[in-house]
């Protein structure tokens, strides 16, 4: 580490600060029982399960928590009687 690299590099602490803010907002939500993403995930799956037999092992859930936008992707195999299997994709943006 010399002076040149010291000047060239952007400071990393602001990145750390932003990451912690997003993370802690979520952690506190979980402890307070108000994790919106987790609630959405459960309710979306419950709605689908009302209409089709849902195999929880075949549900793929991808999550990216962010500020101001989080994305929740739920990839479900929806069995169909008339046609071959379709894949439904639900994306929630709270």
């Amino acid at each position, binding site marked *: *580490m010399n002076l040149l690299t010291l000047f060239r*590099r952007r400071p*990393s*602490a602001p*990145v*750390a600060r932003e*990451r912690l803010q*997003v*993370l802690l907002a979520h*952690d506190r939500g*979980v*402890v307070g029982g108000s994790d919106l993403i987790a609630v959405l*995930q459960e309710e979306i799956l419950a709605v689908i399960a009302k209409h089709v037999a849902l195999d929880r*092992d075949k*549900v*793929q*859930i*991808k*999550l*990216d*928590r*962010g500020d101001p936008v*989080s994305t929740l992707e739920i990839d479900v195999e929806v069995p169909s009687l008339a046609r071959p299997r379709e894949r439904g994709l639900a994306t929630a943006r709270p």
Partner: protein
Amino acid sequence: MAQVVVVTSGKGGVGKTTSTASLGAALAQSGENVVVVDFDVGLRNLDLVMGAERRVVFDLVNVVQGDAKLAQALIRDKRLENLSLLPASQTRDKDALTSEGVERIIGELRERFDWILCDSPAGIERGATLAMRHADQAVVVTNAEVSSVRDSDRIIGLLDSKTEKAEKGGRIDKHLLLTRYDAARASRGEMLKVDDVLEILSIPLLGIIPESQDVLRASNLGAPVTLASPNSAPARAYIEAARRLKGEQIQIILPAAEPRGFLGKLFGRRAVA
């Protein structure tokens, strides 16, 4: 055959999580198929050091309790496709882990990966003993400082008695990873020397990781130091340690004390720690 490695220390704050992330990434960078597993239930941090904290859906406890399949809980690294993370739960406590559940998951991980690195929680309680239980090898992370060395000695005792391998009459391979090493302070006699620690603990040395601001920068950015600054001194030390873990014979070179500059002399300490 898959290798299960526990990264442990007894004492907290010595660099277990940093070392798990860095060794895991270094092994993956050399082409191995690697998973890093966070056993610190209730106080997880490996996700943060790996930069995957926004993507956690399910965790180790969910898989142990059968609420999620292993494949649903594994998070693949965005930079290295052959590196995965199994996060710990943040909301539960370590009693949520059962011995049978952990054994089953380690068994499933053995079928999918070449290397399974288990990041142990600090202490010698249930979480730490579960993390070491099924290990083939142990990396004992130690600082050159009296309480860390004492705690490492205690952990070595547990590795020789509480692991499955030990109970079956075998011996677990133990390696010493000396972290946060400050060669200048050691040369001034302010810090235990490498030889002192090796003589006291008498297990083979895996590597010496120098104290460096590159490690802090990497954790700020959410990337193992071997990915964030691959040419830095700590990254090179971790990459060599990973090669030794794979069985390569590489000579360990003692980090030399950097000469103190004018400013360092003026203020009685090094300008860049």
